[in-house]
């Protein structure tokens, strides 16, 4: 069976579902028998889900609209 270090070397591609069937089989086998890597995998997936669904750094229309309006006004003024 592969080691934790070897599992970690493939981890980025495993999370993105970009490993070949042969490698996936090896990684799944490791995962089924290694508690530490199970936790790493599960919590990393949860991290991505939380970050994705957090709506972070969204610029509210109340802020973006005045900025866009100001830019467009400047462009129209430059033209006239």
């Amino acid at each position: 069976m592969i080691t934790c270090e070897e599992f970690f070397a493939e981890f980025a591609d495993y999370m993105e579902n970009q490993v070949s069937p042969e490698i996936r089989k090896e990684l799944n086998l490791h995962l089924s028998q290694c508690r530490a890597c199970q936790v790493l995998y599960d919590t990393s997936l949860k991290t991505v889900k939380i970050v994705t669904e957090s709506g972070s750094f969204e610029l509210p229309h109340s802020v973006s609209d005045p900025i866009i309006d100001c830019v467009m006004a400047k462009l129209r003024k430059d033209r006239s």
Partner: protein
Amino acid sequence: MSFLGEVRLKDKFGPFVAFQAGLGFVPNLVLAQTLLPRLIEAQAMLESAVRLREGAIPRVQKERILLIVEAERQDTYCVALDSKILSSLGLLDVHIDGLLADYQNAGLSGSELACLEFCLKLSRDAPSVCSEDIAALRACGIGDESIFEAVLVTALAVYRCTLSVGLCPEPDFAPRKIPSMRVDQRHGPAPRSLLSGSAEAARRNGPYVPAPYLSPKTFSPFDIVQKSHGFIPNFFRAQSLRPDLLEAELEAVGRILLPEEALTRVQKESILLAVSAANLNSYCVAMHCNLLRGLGMPSEEGDQIAVDYHEANLSVADKALLDFAVKLGTRGREFSRRDVVKLQALGFTEEQILECVVVTALNNFANTLQMGLGIEPDFAPPPVFEENKVHLADAVATPIGREGGVYRGDAIHDLDAELVAQAQDGKLEAFEELVRRHTQLIYRTLMAMLGKPPDAQDALQDTLLNAFKHIGGFQGRSKFSTWLVSIARNTALQRLRARKDVESLDEPEREEEGDFRPRQVRSWADNPEQLHSKSEIQQLVEAGILGLPAKYRVVVVLRDIEQLSTDEVARQLGLSVPAVKTRLLRGRLMLREWLSPHFTASTKGAVK
């Protein structure tokens, strides 16, 4: 007669000894490369591993594959040489003539004939090879190792033929007659599949032969690839069935591509990209676009080489170099001494021209291998390349050794295209609509880089003004949104420089750069997002992201919040895909450490 000069090397030169031992003499094809002895070492490694080493296919059968593939390509030099080698292995001249005249009725077994037909198809029309062809071989009782070796031997034949056309060595032996029947086959329609009527159903579903897991810890060549590329491309993983062959191939590739004594790495990668594009090999196109990006070439330039290098921002000499390589790699029959003289007139040395020939041969070797083994892509090819419908699965096949395709850099399909055209005509309403579509993307990029909302808002305004100022120069080679992000990125960089607070976004990853191995090993609650309110989670995530080093922050924001694909992130930031993957993993793991105390199974209480 040979196109390029030769120098005398010692008889004890290792590869010469190997050729003497394996073939009984040193072929002129090898002597024609004496200007750069490392290229001879590369060929000797490939020939010794693929052709001479004992494996699943008997040596005589490998020689028959080489002979028939070379005959079909009308390569009189290689046919004369390999006929002599077959003869030295005990085959009678009458049998060799019989093979050349009509291999289908030369008394070969059913399985050898099926294997030979497959090799011919791969050499003649590589993009049409599909999983049904492999299934047909298996049905004839041919095992995976034999299929694997047959692909490699075919790739070697293609390599040798490309060398012989490009170098034009003196014949070693009197030429043999190659029946004209083969010429007709070359011009005729190439069969789409070995199985009749299966053209429409042709599927790839690669990789075709199993690739057992090889660890970089135990297979040191993978460790070297991992360190040089940042990852192990599927191209190499798919060959793990035979680590001995893979090791020789990696050594040979290193000898040809890494030294910069003649051509530069960028020139060599550009050759590999342009010839792969002409061979319709989207796997290799994507790979070399990424490698060029890693060497500092802007992604749009790499994409342009794939689509039409004549329109790329290259010197006249470099375009001529690519003309030379593409002609040699795809239209060998038109190639002549005049092509060599043209490069010489532009100032290329004989060593550079020799290296261009060998790099082109290596490219055709790799293209053949990739299509023969059905190696799955590591990255998506450039969108423009796909939009022109030259993806291998859908392509109108233009095989190696035949007329190359023509690609023109039409604007890629972009939902913004119409509005962009109007904005370029000065229509402000169209520009405003474009801006509103992409405000969030621009703002998030700016926030990720600048880290402070007031700065990001000011920079948003500057970005929009800059975008309007330069929109006339946007040529549609990338998506409009990609172009906008590049403007935002430059605007943010100017601000960072002004406040003398530049955290390098471009510095490469370092091995020793912290241990990103997890420290938190406690499991999280089943539904961690239910432990806190939405606004608390948003605060936590934003604080965590702002605490990341800038180069990880930008990648995490674009990939996980803006949800662009890894390839799009790489394109937008001008990074290679492996660099994005490394930064993304590190950023995610750092965020995981940050979030862990708030989401473990026993976590209660509010966010501070």
